[in-house]
């Protein structure tokens, strides 16, 4: 496990989110170091996706602060956070269905990578090359000219990941990237995520499939009913009595 550096990559302090009278998240403290593979688990409705939405700017947290690489994210909207290096995939894939796969990937390249480096823009040729490269990394190169409706479930998940990775993130939230997939398909997605982590991307995996989470994560965070109840090495975290209670009942 990488050692904690002076400034953590992501630092969440006292984060809270309500929907009307319903408290979705309360007092969330979370620190993520660069290079980590963090598993985020919890029963349905425990606030995992809400947390990701708050961190990525899709939702606004009423209380608490979020700092990314030492910079406060408060008040920044989603695309500004993406440009800082925070990417996500969606729980239900949200491809741009009227565009072919290449154009799906071109959008983050044009709007995030090129917006980030205003001085040296990628040329049209460089973008085309990068699109092909990103698609071939997830074995979608032969479908580059197809539209998302021609893809299978697992391919859709891969497109979702490729589009997130195209933003050249330093931190990637993979929100249930494997739900509903077969065993071999899960292995495929895990391999993709592992490779991305080797390339230096810090990854937060939100997942229900425990075998996948356990084999992937270097650290595990457990949310139950909007509270963080465990944070530590995966094997220790799942043996935590509170976690057992939440998952198995008393």
């Amino acid at each position, binding site marked *: 496990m990488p050692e904690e550096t002076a400034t953590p990559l992501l630092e969440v302090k006292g984060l809270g989110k309500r929907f009307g009278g319903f408290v979705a998240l309360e007092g969330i403290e979370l620190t993520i170091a660069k290079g980590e593979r963090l598993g985020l688990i919890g029963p349905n409705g425990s606030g995992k996706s809400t947390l990701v939405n708050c961190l990525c700017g899709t939702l606004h947290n009423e209380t608490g602060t979020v700092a990314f690489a030492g910079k406060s994210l408060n008040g920044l909207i989603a695309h500004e956070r993406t440009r800082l290096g925070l990417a996500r995939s969606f729980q239900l894939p949200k491809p741009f269905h009227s*565009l072919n796969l290449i154009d799906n990937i071109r959008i983050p390249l044009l709007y995030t990578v090129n917006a980030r480096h205003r001085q040296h823009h990628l040329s049209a040729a460089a973008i085309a090359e990068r699109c092909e490269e990103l698609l071939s990394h997830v074995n979608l190169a032969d479908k580059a000219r197809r539209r998302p409706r021609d893809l299978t479930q697992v391919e859709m998940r891969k497109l979702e990941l490729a589009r997130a990775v195209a933003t050249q993130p330093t931190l990637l939230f993979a929100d249930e990237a494997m739900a509903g997939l077969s065993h071999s398909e899960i292995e495929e997605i895990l391999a993709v995520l592992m490779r991305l982590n080797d390339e230096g991307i810090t990854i937060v995996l939100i997942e229900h499939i425990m075998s996948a989470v356990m084999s992937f994560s270097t650290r595990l965070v457990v949310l139950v009913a909007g509270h963080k109840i465990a944070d530590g090495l995966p094997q220790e975290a799942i043996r935590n009595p509170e976690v057992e209670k939440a998952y198995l009942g008393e």
Partner: protein
Amino acid sequence: MRNWVFWAVLVAVGLVFVVVSRLTIANDYFYFAGYVVLEYVVLATAWNILGGYTGYTNFGTGAFFAAGAYSSVVLFKLPPLLLATFNWTIPAMPLPVMIAVGGVVSGLIGLGTGYLTLRLRGVFFAIATLALSIVLQTLIVNWAFVGGSRGVFVIRPALAPLGGGYIQYLFSLMTLLAVIAVGIARSIERSRLGLGFHAIRDDELAAEAAGVPTLRLKLISTTISGALMGMAGAPLPYFVTYLTPTASFDLAYAVNSVAMPVIGGMTSWIGPVIGAILLGTLQQLGTVGFFLDLKLDPTFNLLIVGLLLIGFVIIAPNGIVGLVQSWLRRGEA
């Protein structure tokens, strides 16, 4: 085709169209009818930038169009007013300047409306734009300076530029506007901006996550779309010479500018052009009683549009362009 080549071809087509018409057709009616069809090319193309590319349905075409028309009325009435109140003499405004001003006014209305309403999605945005139309019409009806509900007479200059009559001049200007509108639409389609619009149309959350500044892009879209509609409306007072709120805010503008892109096809610049030429011409023919033999009264004009719209939405939701594309694909397979 490269962008500048397309622009060059487009300008050449517009020029040839005007010159050949002027040389071969003497009948004034052709220019009247042609003006209306070209006006719809501009309106449908402008509507499609927001409605087709960005995915926001605008039922307020009448508002943007009339705002352009009434900004021309204000500019027309300004020199006599200044002379009477302050004894200032300013020359009468030429029509191209009025068109530019109309574009700016409606562009700003687009920007403002966009800012207030773009948090609304789908049908709620459509309703808001319809409301805008009603609000603006009420303002004009109660504004005596521009004629109020009685309407206003606008006197054409005695001499038309470019030789020929004034209607020929208006026809030439509207051709130019159509060229500009189609050129802009096509340039957007092939650009980074157009790709961003498509991303918004497909999924706004995913667009934001990919780094697309969705609010800014939607404002750009409403502004461009509104500005082009205003430019199309600016020459209207000189076309009708007697302008009333009921005529300029006519629901037919809103219905047509939605129906034409839907029937032509909303994914490409050519769709609204095809839709506008087809429906515009059909309606012109209907107006002069071309279908009287079929026992179709001229007032059946909007009925034709309505029936075609329903038919296309059910049978060919991607419009004529979509039909041709799928037919070509079948040819390949």
